[in-house]
């Protein structure tokens, strides 16, 4: 039984909306609104949802790249939200992130050897020539010729830059890596390269991933367990097979049915949701999904359903379910 590496408890992140001359706070964007889940060592947890659901904010808040409003983030037994600035900086060695945009996530004026070495230098892992030797090793690991280490980011393609970002994260030998839409901005034929690379590295270094994405096909391929978010809340958690074969939450069902599949044989009942994804500023009362839900009952507009474990490892937040 694997250890629990990360436990998110009642995490909340609100962004204030300021208006007027004196910048009064007139409202809140409830980006992440009381979510809890666990991540075990060595697994890949897919965090999926559409825009505005809060998945990227969740990843950033766990790393304290955005300061959470409330809640706990327990990493290896310690609540890292309580750490002071200096201690947190040291802790970052264990928790890294790969960003979505390969073009803006690398400093255009730094050689890639310095980009990758920055973490090594900051945490004093190696010094002198040793560190560039390590940079060379990391580049080889991610599939880039070490001779290129003196080049600048603009000399590489999107896929290659993403590999450099992966090397940068790996340089610190982290325990967990957040992949924030790590392949969404890449060309289709490059995505599989990066996905395979991430999988191989996971095996080699026993990494744990929290994989944030909106593409369910990628999530299905790469995750062990899946967390589905909607409008700042978790609506369903299950392991992969359970989620796709025994989908319980109406939103998850609609999400799965909406994905276009490149096949002619795939027959499915398309569940077309009414209306648009609402804004997290003023979420609906009760269950946040109820205005678009075909199975909504009266209860749904009044009381918010809690996340209940209906089967071992399978959690749903839904009244009719």
């Amino acid at each position, binding site marked *: 039984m694997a250890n629990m590496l990360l436990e998110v408890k009642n995490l909340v992140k609100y962004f204030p909306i300021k208006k007027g001359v004196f910048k009064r706070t007139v409202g809140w964007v409830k980006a992440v609104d009381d979510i809890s889940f666990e991540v075990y060592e060595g697994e890949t947890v897919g965090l999926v949802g559409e825009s505005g659901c809060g998945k990227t904010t969740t990843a950033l808040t766990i790393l304290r790249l955005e300061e959470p409003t409330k809640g706990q983030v327990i990493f290896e037994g310690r609540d890292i939200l309580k750490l002071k600035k200096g201690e947190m900086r040291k802790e*970052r060695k264990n928790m*890294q992130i790969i*960003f979505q945009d390969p073009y803006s996530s690398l400093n255009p*004026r730094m050689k890639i050897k310095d980009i990758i070495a920055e*973490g090594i230098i*900051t*945490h004093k892992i190696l010094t002198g020539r040793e560190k560039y030797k390590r940079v060379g090793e990391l580049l080889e690991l991610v599939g880039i010729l070490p001779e290129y280490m003196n080049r600048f980011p603009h000399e590489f393609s999107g896929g290659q830059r993403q590999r450099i970002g992966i090397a*940068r994260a790996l340089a610190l030998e982290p325990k967990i890596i957040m992949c924030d839409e790590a392949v969404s901005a890449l060309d289709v034929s490059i995505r599989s390269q990066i996905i395979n690379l991430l999988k191989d590295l996971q095996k080699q270094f026993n990494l744990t991933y929290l994989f944030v994405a909106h593409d369910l096909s990628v999530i299905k391929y790469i995750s062990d367990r899946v967390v589905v978010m909607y409008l700042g809340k978790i609506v369903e958690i299950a392991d992969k097979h359970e989620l796709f074969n025994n989908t319980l939450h109406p939103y998850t069902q609609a999400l799965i049915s909406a994905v276009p599949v490149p096949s002619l044989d795939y027959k499915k009942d398309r569940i077309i949701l009414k209306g648009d994804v609402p804004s997290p500023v003023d979420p609906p009362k009760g269950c946040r999904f109820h205005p678009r839900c075909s199975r909504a009952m009266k209860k749904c507009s009044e009381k918010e359903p809690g996340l209940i474990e209906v089967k071992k490892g399978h959690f749903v937040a839904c009244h009719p379910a």
Partner: protein
Amino acid sequence: MNRILKKLFSNVTSLVGIILLAFFIVIAVFAPVITPPLSDDHYQIPRMSWDVNPQPPGSPMSDNMKQAYEFMEKEVKWKKAICGTAEGGYDIFYGLIWGTRTAFKIGIITVTISMLIGIILGSISAYFGGWIDEVLMRITDIFLSFPFLVAAMVLTTVLGRGLDKVMIALISFGWMGYARLIRGSILSTKEETYVMAAKALGVNDTKIIWKHLLPNTIFPVMVQGSMNIGSMVIMAAALSFLGVGAPVGYADWGQMVSFARNWIIGSPGNAGQYWYAVFYPGIFIVLFVLSWNLIGDTLRDILDPRLRGEL
């Protein structure tokens, strides 16, 4: 870097600017050779005569003066005032040559120091935000609300006469533009993903500002600085003209124009009689400022397409 140099040299405007600047640099470097100094203070313009009126170009040294120099055992290498003399017999040519050094001194020192102040204040303000930003920006606003020339004048009156005091005045009221410029740049750059990536690595704030923010934002500030070198020289000249700058006889173009103050109109019946007293220092100021402006303009144009993504 190579692309910048290539573009600088291929553009007519900037080529003119570069040639002009090269001309001034050569003069400044070779000043002691072109017009060897006569006193220990190299910037003291030697006199060609004791005449109150400015003497026209080509006037020879007066006999009195020659005797005076013989007495002081000083050898004067040139016999004629090529550009004429200013009021009090000061050799204009000498003033032009050594004034070039003064101009570079004023321009570069004031711009460098005020840029440094502006960058430090602006980047702290932008990076930390909050009340630090508020306080620093309000201080900037207060300084900006003083009319530049008046403020500089008051400061030099308080501090006393002299070019160094002029430079202090120019710096004190010249840093705000840079602060604002870099603050704006940093405010937008700090939202870039690679800055967040550095934070995620655990890099501390000072390093982030120094390694990630400044290198990516400093270029426009430097371009602005290079263009301001010219204006600093003009401001100093203006202050000298108003009498609060360099002392009498100092090799400074502004001071020389100030010398010519009483002689601009000329004598009755001969309006432009003393044109050389104004013209020579004036043209040097104009060309010097022009050269920096031309180069700065081209640098700014080069910057723009670069901002759109190439490097």
